[in-house]
C-alpha cells in the first residue's frame, strides 16, 4: 500500500473524528483560559501573616497616629489611621493614606550617600565611612564662620540635635524657616507677654472664626481640623457649630463654612479689627479685656475700622462682619484663629495679633471651646544660644558680596523649590562651594547638592512630632521604624553624632533613639501625660482638669509611648496670663511687591487639599486625583473671575503666560465665580523639576512667582501675595 493523498486524507479524517473523543480539545481550552488569566507580567502580591505596627505620620507636623499593615513583617501594604490616637482617631488625610509611596517610589529616593562633581554633574556613590570622612574634612575646612544650617525639622527632638550640631560646629548662620507657630509665638508675646504657642479647643466651640487658614484643606494638624468639622456638622442644623471663614477665594473651607467673608487679599487684619470694633461698640467685651492695660489704645485702633469703613477697604459686607462678630461674642463657646494655607508659611503678624486680641475680647483664654495657652512640653534644651537667622537675608548678603559662605547644610528643607525666593536660593547654592543635603528624596536642592548623606523616610526611622500647631494640649507623637531600611540611608540623628565625633567633639547622644528616650524621660518626669488609647474618647473634656496619670519609670513610659505612638497631656493647665494692649500694632492692608502699572493683578498663591506644598512633595496617588481644571497634562490652571477673563479676552481653558517680577510660565485659565474679580489665584506646590514623572515638570511653582513681602512687624517673608500679569504669547 503506497501512501497517497487520498489515504492521507482518510487518515486525517479519522484522526479528526477521533479528536472529538479525546480530552485534547476541552482540556486545552481550559488550560489556555487559565493561561490567559495569569500573565507572567501581572504582579501577584505575596501573601503572608498580616500584622499592624503603630507609629506616627511625619509627612507634616500634624502628629497623626497611623497603623501600617505589614505582610510577614517585611512588606508594608497599607497605612490606616490609628483609632487610639486622640489627634486623628482613625482618620487620615489623602497624603497620609498615600504615605507608602514615599517609602517605595524608588526613583524618588536617594539610594545611599553620594557626592557630585559640580563641573561635570557626575555623581559617585560613597560608603558611609567615606562620606562621613569627606563631610568631616570639608566641614573642618569650611570652618564655623562660613557655615550655614537650614533646619526644616523644627517640630522634632531632631531640632535640638541639629541646633546642638550648629553650636558644636560654631556655625555662623542657623535658619529655621518661619511658620505659623512662630507667628503665634510673636503674637502671644505682644498681647500676653508670653512668647509661646497656643491651641484651639475647636471640638467644643460653637462659633469658629477662621482667618485665612486652609482649615479643611490641610492646615496645622489636618485630620484633627477635619474631624472637628465633622463634629460641628453632626446633629441637627440648629445645633451645629457655625464656621465663619475669612478667605480671599471661595476655597473649600469657605464653601463649607456657614458664612464666607470674601476679604480682598491682604486685608484680613482689618476684618478682624472691624469685628473688634463691633464687639467694643456693642459692649460685648469680656471685663478682663476691657480692664486690660492699653485697652483704650486698642479701642481707638478698632474704632478706626467701623464695619462700613472696613467693608470699603476689605470688600466684605458690613452686615457679614457684624453678624460674625455678634455670633462670636454671644456664643457661650467661641474661638478665633488665623493661619496661612497649610501653616508651613507665616501669616502676617498683625493678623495673628488682631485675631488673638479677638479671643482676648471674648475672654476665652484657657476656657472650654476657647484658646488654650498650653506651654510646650519639656524638651532636651540642646543647642542653647544658637540664634535663628533669616535665610533670605543671608542669601541677599551673599548675592551682594557682603557675606561669604563655604558650606550650606540642608535638613529636610528644599529652598530651591520652597524658597523663600527660589531664585535667590539658587544663587546662594551656586555661590556656596559645598552644599550638603540630608534629604532622603531627590528634591530640587538635593539634586544640586555636592554631598548627600540621605536620611531614611519616616517609616524607617525614629522621630517625633512636638505638639502640633493649634493643639490645645501638649502632645508628643513618636515615629518608629516599621522595618529595616530599604535603601542605604542612615538616620540623620545618628549621622550627626558620628560627624560631631569626627570633628573632635562629644555628641550629646550616640544615636537618635537615645535622644528620644531622654526626651520621653523628661515627659515622664512631669508626672503627667497619657499614652494613646481609646479612652478618654474626648480628651478635650479633661483640659485643665488637674494632674494625669504617671509612669513608674522612664523605661516604662518609653515602652508604652513607642508602642502607642503618642504621649499627651490633656490635663495640663494653660499658662496664666494678663492681657495687655499696650503694644498695639499699626495696621495697614498688606501691599504686594511689584510695579502695579506693569503687573496690574494681585496674585494669590493658595494651598489646597490635593497638593502638598511643604518639604514632602505630592505622592502619585494624590496627584492622580487632582481635577482636570486644575492640572491638565503639564499645565497648571490659574483661577480668575469671568469678568477678569472677559477684559483680557480669555475663556475657559485658554493658555496664557503668567508673568511676575520673579518668574513666568504657561498656565491654563479656569474661570470661576469663586475668584474675586481682578485677582489671579495660583495653587501652590506644583512646578517641581524633579521627582517621578507624575510630578516632574508639571505646572508652575507658586513660590517662584511671588516676590516675598517683608512683614512690617517681624520682618518675616510673606509669600502668598504678589503681583502678576497675564499675557497671550
Amino acid at each position, binding site marked *: 500500500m503506497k501512501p497517497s493523498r487520498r489515504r492521507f486524507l482518510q487518515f486525517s479524517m479519522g484522526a479528526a*473524528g477521533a479528536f472529538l473523543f479525546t*480530552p485534547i480539545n476541552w482540556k486545552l481550552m481550559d488550560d489556555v483560559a*487559565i493561561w490567559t488569566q495569569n500573565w507572567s507580567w501581572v504582579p501577584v502580591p505575596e501573601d503572608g501573616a498580616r500584622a499592624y505596627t503603630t507609629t506616627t505620620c511625619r509627612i507634616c507636623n500634624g502628629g497623626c497616629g497611623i497603623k501600617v499593615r505589614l505582610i510577614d513583617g517585611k512588606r508594608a501594604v497599607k497605612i490606616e489611621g490609628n483609632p487610639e490616637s486622640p489627634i486623628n482617631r482613625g482618620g487620615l488625610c489623602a497624603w497620609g493614606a498615600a504615605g507608602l509611596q514615599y517609602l517605595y517610589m524608588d526613583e524618588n529616593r536617594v539610594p545611599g550617600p553620594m557626592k557630585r562633581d559640580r563641573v561635570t554633574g557626575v555623581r559617585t556613590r560613597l560608603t558611609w565611612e567615606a562620606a562621613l570622612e569627606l563631610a568631616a574634612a570639608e566641614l573642618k575646612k569650611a570652618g564655623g564662620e562660613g557655615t550655614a544650617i537650614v533646619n526644616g525639622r523644627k517640630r522634632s527632638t531632631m531640632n535640638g540635635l541639629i541646633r546642638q550640631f550648629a553650636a558644636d560646629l560654631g556655625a555662623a548662620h542657623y535658619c529655621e524657616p518661619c511658620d505659623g507657630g512662630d507667628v503665634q509665638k510673636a503674637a502671644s508675646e505682644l498681647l500676653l507677654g508670653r512668647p509661646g504657642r497656643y491651641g484651639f479647643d475647636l471640638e467644643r466651640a460653637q462659633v469658629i472664626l477662621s482667618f485665612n487658614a486652609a482649615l479643611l484643606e490641610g492646615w496645622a494638624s489636618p485630620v484633627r481640623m477635619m474631624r472637628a468639622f465633622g463634629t460641628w456638622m453632626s446633629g441637627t442644623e440648629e445645633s451645629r457649630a457655625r464656621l465663619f471663614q475669612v478667605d480671599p477665594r471661595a476655597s473649600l473651607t469657605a464653601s463649607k463654612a456657614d458664612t464666607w467673608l470674601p476679604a480682598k487679599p491682604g486685608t484680613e487684619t482689618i476684618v478682624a479689627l472691624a469685628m473688634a470694633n463691633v464687639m467694643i461698640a456693642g459692649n460685648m467685651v469680656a471685663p478682663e479685656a476691657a480692664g486690660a492695660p492699653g485697652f483704650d489704645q486698642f479701642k481707638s485702633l478698632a474704632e478706626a475700622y467701623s464695619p462700613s469703613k472696613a467693608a470699603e477697604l476689605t470688600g466684605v459686607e458690613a452686615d457679614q462682619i457684624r453678624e460674625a462678630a455678634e455670633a462670636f461674642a454671644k456664643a457661650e463657646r467661641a474661638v478665633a484663629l488665623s493661619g496661612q494655607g497649610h501653616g508651613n508659611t507665616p501669616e502676617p503678624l498683625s493678623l495673628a495679633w488682631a485675631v488673638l486680641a479677638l479671643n482676648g475680647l471674648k475672654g476665652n483664654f484657657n476656657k472650654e471651646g476657647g484658646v488654650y495657652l498650653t506651654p510646650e512640653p519639656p524638651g532636651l534644651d540642646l543647642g542653647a544660644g544658637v540664634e535663628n537667622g533669616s535665610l533670605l537675608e543671608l542669601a541677599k548678603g551673599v548675592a551682594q558680596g557682603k557675606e561669604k559662605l563655604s558650606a550650606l547644610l540642608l535638613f529636610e528643607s528644599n529652598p530651591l523649590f520652597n524658597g523663600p525666593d527660589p531664585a535667590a536660593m539658587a544663587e546662594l547654592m551656586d555661590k556656596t562651594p559645598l552644599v550638603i543635603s540630608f534629604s532622603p528624596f531627590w528634591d530640587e536642592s538635593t539634586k544640586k547638592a555636592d554631598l548627600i548623606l540621605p536620611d531614611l523616610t519616616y517609616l524607617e526611622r525614629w522621630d517625633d512630632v512636638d505638639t502640633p500647631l493649634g493643639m490645645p494640649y501638649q502632645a508628643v507623637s513618636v515615629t518608629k521604624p516599621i522595618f529595616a531600611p530599604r535603601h542605604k540611608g542612615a538616620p540623620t540623628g545618628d549621622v550627626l553624632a558620628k560627624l560631631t565625633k569626627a570633628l573632635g567633639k562629644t555628641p550629646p547622644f550616640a544615636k537618635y533613639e537615645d535622644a528620644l528616650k531622654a526626651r520621653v524621660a523628661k515627659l515622664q518626669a512631669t508626672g503627667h501625660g497619657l499614652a494613646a488609647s481609646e479612652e478618654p474618647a474626648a480628651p478635650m473634656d479633661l483640659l485643665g482638669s488637674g494632674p494625669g496619670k504617671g509612669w513608674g519609670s522612664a523605661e516604662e513610659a518609653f515602652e508604652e509611648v513607642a508602642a502607642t505612638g503618642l504621649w499627651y497631656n490633656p490635663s495640663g493647665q494653660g499658662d496664666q496670663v494678663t492681657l495687655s494692649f499696650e503694644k498695639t500694632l499699626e495696621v495697614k492692608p498688606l501691599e504686594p511687591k511689584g510695579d502695579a502699572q506693569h503687573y496690574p493683578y494681585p496674585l494669590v498663591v493658595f494651598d489646597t487639599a490635593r497638593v502638598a506644598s511643604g518639604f514632602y512633595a505630592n505622592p502619585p496617588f494624590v496627584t492622580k486625583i487632582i481635577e482636570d481644571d486644575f492640572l491638565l497634562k503639564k499645565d497648571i490652571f490659574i483661577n480668575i473671575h469671568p469678568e477678569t477673563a472677559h477684559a483680557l479676552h480669555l475663556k475657559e481653558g485658554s493658555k496664557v503666560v503668567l508673568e511676575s517680577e520673579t518668574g513666568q510660565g504657561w498656565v491654563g485659565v479656569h474661570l470661576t465665580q469663586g475668584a474675586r474679580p481682578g485677582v489671579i489665584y495660583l495653587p501652590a506646590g506644583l512646578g517641581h523639576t524633579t521627582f517621578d514623572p507624575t510630578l516632574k515638570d508639571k505646572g508652575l511653582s507658586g513660590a517662584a512667582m511671588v516676590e516675598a513681602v517683608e512683614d512690617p512687624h517681624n520682618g518675616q517673608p510673606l509669600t502668598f501675595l504678589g503681583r502678576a500679569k497675564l499675557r497671550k504669547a
Partner: protein
Amino acid sequence: MTDDRNAKQKSKGGILFFLAGFVVMLIFGWAVFPALLYSTAQQPVSFSHKKHLEGAGMECEQCHSFREDGTFMGTANMTGNFDGACLNCHDDPETMQGADPRETYFLKEYVVKGVKRIEWKVYSKQPPCVFFPHAVHTVKAELECATCHGDMAQQDQPPVYKENRLSGYSIDIWGRNISGLTSNSWESMKMSDCGACHEERGTANGCQVCHK
C-alpha cells in the same frame, strides 16, 4: 466491473485508514497528550506524613495551622511560626530522629547546609484570583481536610508533582485522570467542584465569595 471492484477496494482501504487515524488520535489524545502536557518533578524533600504522624505522634495542626486572624498558614517549613517547623525537632544535624535514609538526606542537604526554606511544590495551589478561607471550610463547615486533599496521613511518599506546562498549576487541580472524571471529592479542585459543593450545601455561591 473492474471499476466497481476498484471502488470497493478503495472504500475498504478508506475505512482502514480512517480507523487507523481514529485509533492513532485516540492513543495520542488519551495517552501521549497528557504526558506531553505535564512536566514532572519530585518534592525537594521526600516527606513522609505517615512517619511524622504515626511514628513521631505529631498532629496535622502542628504543620498546617491557622494564624490568630483566621488566615491559614499552609505548609510548615524549616523555621517559622509553626509548632511543626522542621528545625524544632531536626535541629541537630548529627542526631537522627528516626532511621529513614531520607532523613539522612534532609539533614545533610538542609540542616547542615543551613537552608532556610524548603521550596515545597503545592498540589492544591490555586490561581491568584481565588480566595479560599480554610477556616470557613474546616472550622465552621467542619469539612475534613481529606475532603479536598485526600487522606494525607497515610501517605509515606509524596506523589509525583505534575505541573501543567500551559497553566503552570498542578495536575491535581484538574485531576490525575485526564478525562476529568472523578470518583472521589479530593481528586480534582476545579471551580466547578467548589460550585457544586456550595450548591449542594446551599451556601453562598456568589462569584466574589471565592474570587478576588
